[in-house]
């Protein structure tokens, strides 16, 4: 007979959120899939625009709704402590969803492809402006010229200290390393902020 189940489970359960952003086709879903212990799931969020009329044959206002898909995965660190990874929708017009996704996020991975580095500019701007810790992970596609992390950092004009990691989004160990770098960096940012607030 279980009586104290919910309180105990609730008090200790902690979920952390990490976002995976970057341009279309840069490997966000691949990275989420490589490190997730569950098959990458897709969830849909509703988008609606009040007052938009689709079909006004009967003169009744109808709210039109469409959906946008997000990929996500999970890594269980231990019972009661899980990491959730969310691939952010790539299209610019879905950015308002990022606001929700980034709320309470531990940090973000911005995936970049050096052949079209400019695709990740919006994501870099977004996280910089909101002071959300992020690392830039350069997905080293076969056939792409390899650039050093320093070159990428300079090309993106990153704030000093923002880590740049070369990775293979298909590779689990490589993906793990990216996440580790992010969590370490988020920890440093967090500590620095705490020190700022007391100093």
């Amino acid at each position: 007979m279980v009586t104290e189940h919910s309180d105990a489970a609730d008090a200790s359960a902690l979920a952390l959120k990490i976002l995976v952003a970057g341009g279309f086709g840069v490997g966000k879903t691949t990275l989420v899939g490589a490190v997730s212990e569950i098959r990458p799931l897709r969830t849909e969020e509703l988008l609606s625009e009040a007052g938009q009329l689709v079909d006004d044959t009967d003169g009744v206002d109808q709210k039109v709704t469409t959906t946008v898909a997000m990929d996500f995965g999970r890594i269980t660190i231990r019972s009661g402590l899980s990491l959730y990874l969310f691939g952010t929708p790539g299209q610019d017009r879905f950015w308002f969803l990022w606001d929700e996704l980034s709320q309470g996020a531990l940090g973000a991975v911005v995936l970049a492809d050096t052949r079209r580095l400019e695709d990740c500019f919006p994501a870099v701007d977004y996280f910089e402006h909101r002071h959300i810790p992020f690392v830039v992970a350069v997905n080293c596609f076969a056939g792409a010229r390899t650039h050093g992390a320093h070159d990428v950092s300079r090309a993106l004009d990153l704030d000093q200290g923002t880590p740049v990691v070369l990775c293979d989004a298909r590779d689990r160990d490589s993906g793990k390393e990216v996440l580790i770098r992010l969590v370490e960096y988020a920890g440093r940012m967090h500590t620095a902020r705490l020190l700022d607030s007391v100093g």
Partner: protein
Amino acid sequence: MTPKGRHPMTENRTSGASEPGSQWYDGEAGPLVRPYAMTGGRTQPGPTGVRFDLIALVTFDLAAATLDDAAGLGPEHRTLIDLCRTETQSVAELAADADLPVGVVRVLLGDLLELGCVVISRPVPPALLPDERILREVIAGLRAL
């Protein structure tokens, strides 16, 4: 059919989705649906007004196990109960597994919360983001994967 007042979205990166007349969905956005039939037309969870985070954790409340027949719950409510009966699940996982949009799941979870069938954890506010001990635990856990 192109309904009146719509035109293809421009490729201009700087144009915001709220710009008058700009197209805010296309083929990639998925079909147009009217999912609120499942929520009785509601778009917000009940009077509690809580907006559950995607990673809010939903735990089935065993003490309320007998409630579900009496309360006039719909099949979607029951699906959600079945999913979190076995293990605690995040809102995002529930939506994916029930194949329902997150907005719909939020409304239905609001119902279940009011009925006391589930316990829903609040995610940690950003300012209270995990202390170093937890982050160290996460790093060690990732290395051990």
